Each structure stands twice: as structure tokens, then as C-alpha cells.
């Protein structure tokens, strides 16, 4: 199966992946990212075999059925998986099941790429603070939308192009090699720890030290009840009850 895509086919598919993964087409890219269907269709158009592409994609869809991303983190990137697996399946006349075997590890690598995009954004979006402070709406708009789009395109187009043009099997091999390596470990640790920053910022902004016990109460409730898998709504109801109790008891004191 040493048939490859033409340069243009590889570039077009890479461009499509960048459009989806940059999320520049709005919220509806959610279903383009979570579901392989649209990507499979585009690959079919670009390669001129829509029928077979859709049959392979439907098989991949079944693997990713029911994927949701609570809090925004998806355990795999079905879009990237499909963009690699469908061309390989079409060129190598593979069965849909063979395509799945390629799709799963590639999708895993894809999710690290998507996380890496957040990491780059975290540092590259700093100019927005400057524009916000100046009250410069135009600059702020560019910093929020322009910079991350450029980053996504610079990240996804070359990588996807290389992967598609030089063959997906190389990619699956690569994934297996670095999956347990230090690089991925560091990326995971940094990604997992950075959320502490945003939360500390809000604590500082809410600013009332006498309310901090409620932060600790919630933190240890969430740690202690982690195994019970309590939904956010239930926690919010607890929070609202605590808030009402606090206001009721503190205001009574002041009227007396």
C-alpha cells in the first residue's frame, strides 16, 4: 500500500482539520470535532470516493458514539483520527475495521495536539490584556480571534500535511513510541496544574476573606465525594443553600 495522496489532496485535508480544530467555524464545530462524519465526508469529496469514505466513516463513528467532553477535554480527537484513517483505508483498500485500528491511536495523539493548542494560547493571548486596558475594541477582537486562529493553522496544517503525505502508519508507530514518554507526561502535568491559576485569580477577585471557608468546604466536599460522581447541578444547589443560609443569618444579626 505505497500509494499516497497528491500534495493538493493532503493540503486540502490538512486545511479542513485546521478549520475544525481551530474552532474558527463557531460552536457547531463541536459536532465536527466530536463526530468523524463531516471529516469523512470532506475526505471523500477530496479523494473522489464519497461512497466508500462514508462507509468507513460510519464504522469509525460507532467507536466514538457517545463521546462527550465535560469541562472541554475530549479523550480523543475523532476529526484528526478520521482525517488520517479514511485516506489510508481508501488508498490501501482496507476494511472499515482496519481503519478503526489506525484511527484510535491517531485520535489519542490528536487530543494531545488539541491540549497543546490551549497551552500555546495561554501564552500567546497576552496582548489582549494590553488592548483591554486601553479600551481598544479592535485590537482586543484581533487578539482574541486572530492570534489563536493563526496558532491553530500553524500547528495543524504542517503536522497534518506531513502525516497525510508521508503516511499514517508512521504516525501510529510514533504514537506508540512517545505515548508513555516524558514529553507527554510533562504536557499532561502542566495542563492538569495550570487550572489552579484561574481559580486563584477568581478567589482574589471575589476578594472577601471571611467567605474563604466556603471555598475549603467545597474543595473538601468535592475531594471526599469524588467517587460518588455528584453532578455540578447538585453541588450548585448545595452552594445556593449555603449562600442563602449565610445571607439569612448575617442579615438577622445586623437588624438586631
Amino acid at each position, binding site marked *: 500500500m505505497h500509494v499516497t495522496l497528491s500534495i493538493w489532496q493532503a493540503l486540502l485535508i490538512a486545511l479542513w482539520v485546521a478549520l475544525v480544530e481551530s474552532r474558527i467555524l463557531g460552536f457547531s464545530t463541536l*459536532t*465536527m470535532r466530536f463526530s468523524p462524519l463531516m471529516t469523512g465526508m470532506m475526505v471523500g469529496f477530496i479523494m473522489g470516493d464519497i*461512497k466508500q469514505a462514508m462507509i468507513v466513516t460510519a464504522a469509525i463513528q460507532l467507536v466514538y458514539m457517545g463521546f462527550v467532553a465535560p469541562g472541554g477535554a475530549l479523550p480523543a480527537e475523532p476529526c484528526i483520527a478520521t482525517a488520517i484513517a479514511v485516506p489510508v483505508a481508501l488508498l490501501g483498500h482496507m476494511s472499515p475495521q482496519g481503519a478503526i485500528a489506525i484511527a484510535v491511536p491517531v485520535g489519542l495523539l490528536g487530543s494531545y495536539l488539541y491540549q497543546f*493548542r490551549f497551552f500555546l494560547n495561554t501564552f500567546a493571548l497576552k496582548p489582549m490584556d494590553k488592548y483591554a486596558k486601553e479600551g481598544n475594541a479592535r485590537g482586543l477582537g484581533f487578539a482574541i480571534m486572530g492570534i489563536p486562529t493563526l496558532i491553530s493553522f500553524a500547528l495543524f496544517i504542517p503536522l497534518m500535511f506531513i502525516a497525510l503525505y508521508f503516511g499514517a502508519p508512521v504516525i501510529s508507530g510514533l504514537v506508540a513510541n512517545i505515548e508513555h514518554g516524558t514529553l507527554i507526561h510533562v504536557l499532561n502535568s502542566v495542563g492538569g496544574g495550570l487550572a489552579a*491559576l484561574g481559580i*486563584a485569580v477568581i478567589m482574589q477577585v471575589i476578594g472577601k476573606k471571611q467567605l474563604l471557608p466556603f*471555598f475549603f468546604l467545597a474543595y473538601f466536599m468535592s475531594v471526599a465525594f469524588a467517587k460518588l460522581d455528584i453532578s455540578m447541578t447538585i453541588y450548585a444547589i448545595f452552594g445556593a443553600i449555603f*449562600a*442563602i443560609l449565610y445571607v439569612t443569618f448575617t442579615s438577622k444579626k445586623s437588624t438586631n
Partner: protein
Amino acid sequence: MSEEVAANNVDVAENEDVQAEEHRIPQPDKITNKDLMKSWFGWWWANEVPHTFDRMLAPAFCFGLIPTLKKLYKDKAELAKAFQRHLLFFNTQATWGGGTLTGVTISLEEARAKAMANGEEPISEDMINNTKVGLMGPLAGIGDSIDSGTVQYIFIAIFLPFAQKGNFMGALLPFLCFAIATFTYGYYFTKMGYSLGRAAAKEIMTGGRMAGIIDGLGVLGLYMMGILAGQYIKIQSYLKFSISKKVFDVQDILNTILPGILPLFAVLMLYWYFQKKGLKITRGLVYLTIALVVLSIFYVI
């Protein structure tokens, strides 16, 4: 940088009425359905594009509000403050959370701008921040399970047989149905949030219960932050060492002392740093990243 504004947030809230008398801002323009649509579209469009680790979707939320805030705050300094407060940590789901909160926030900002123009006591920045922070989590929980967990897969399941037969409509139709449905009800939530927020803002401002409500929202906000800290921050130790053939697993030892101690330690160190030095977000980010990289290279975490 948003550093000084938020650093002085406590003082700002206390001095707010004094400031409002000294410095009136021009009357804001009326907010129309078209403005709500613009802001909803802005948020819908930006949504995940500027996602960062430290602020998550706050830049997208701010992006949606830009046209509306420009109509409300004709005063450059107040506009800048409004931009800055909406760039702080925010994460929610797009339609149920983002749509509703876009509407609610616009109504609160409108009430604030009007009060400032009339020289009355405005809704404080704390109030706006706490409302967003308190509501974003629960609404996201509902939205994630309904939009991406249910609505999306209903459409996919209906049209999957087309795809299995090799028909591209099996891909196009679920996408179009999902896009149109979510865009439409998201806009409906924006309008609903706006009218709910307006009613609430009116009652708050005339009822004289502002201080109590700010405290209440502060409790809810800090409580939800505690929950998020417990669920989002993933720091654990991978360090193992052995003394006279007995292996010690550091995370196990930490768990017996206090489960969840490492994430809490990270948050409290940052909080303590901000308390001492003011809200220097960029420095906090750099220090935290360096610490995480160095510790994880050696598999301490």
C-alpha cells in the same frame, strides 16, 4: 494588563459610590434585540477559538460582549474596566451556560452603566463577577449533557444509516440539524437571560439588598470555585523511593495525611502570592508553569 484593576477590586467596590458621583459617564445607548443577537453570535463564533488553560473561555465571552459594552460605556476608562473584568477565568457550555449568561451579563452591565450615568449607586463589579462565576458551572453541567451528550447523538443516530450506505447526507444532515437547533435555542436563552437579569437588577437596585446579595453570590462563587478546584486541577505525585527494601509511594502517604493536598497547595500558593503582590496574573502563570515543568520532568508530579 488586568492586574491593577482586579488587585484593587475590593477598594473599588467600596469606593464605587464616591467615584460615581465624582465622575458621571455618558448615557448608554438602548440595548436592542439586534445587540443581543450580535453578542450571542460573537460568543457562539469565538466559543472555543481562544481557549486557554488559565482563563478557559473568558476571552470568547469577552469577545461576544465587545459590541454591547461599546454601546453601554461611552467612557473609555469604564469600557476598559468592563473589558478587563470579562477576561478573567470563565468556563461554561456554549448554549445553556454561555447564551444565558451573555443575556444576564448584558442586563447587569446595562443597569450598571445607567446608574453610573444617572449618578446613582451602580451594581458593583463584584456582583457581575460573582453572578457569572456562580452560574457558569451548573449551567455547563446541564448543557454538556443535553447538547453534546443527547441532542448531537440523537441527530447522528437518526442519520447514521445514510452514512452506512455511503450517502454523504448521513454526514451533512446531522451537522446542519445540530448547528441550526443549538444556534436557535442558544439565542433564545440569551434573550431569556437578558429579561430575567433585567428584572433581577431592578429588584436589587430598588430593594436595598445589594450588600446581602453580593455576599450571597460571593459564597456561591467561592463554593463553586472550590468544587472546580477539586475536579479540574490534576496534580499528583509520582515519586516513589525505598528505604531498606520498603517502597514508599509519596502520593499514598499524602493521601493518608490529606487527600487532594497538592492541588489545594498550588491554589493557595498562588492566592497567597496575589494577596502579597497584587493580581500579577502573567507572573503567576510563568512561575506556575516553570514549577510544573521542572517537577514533572523529574516525575515528582
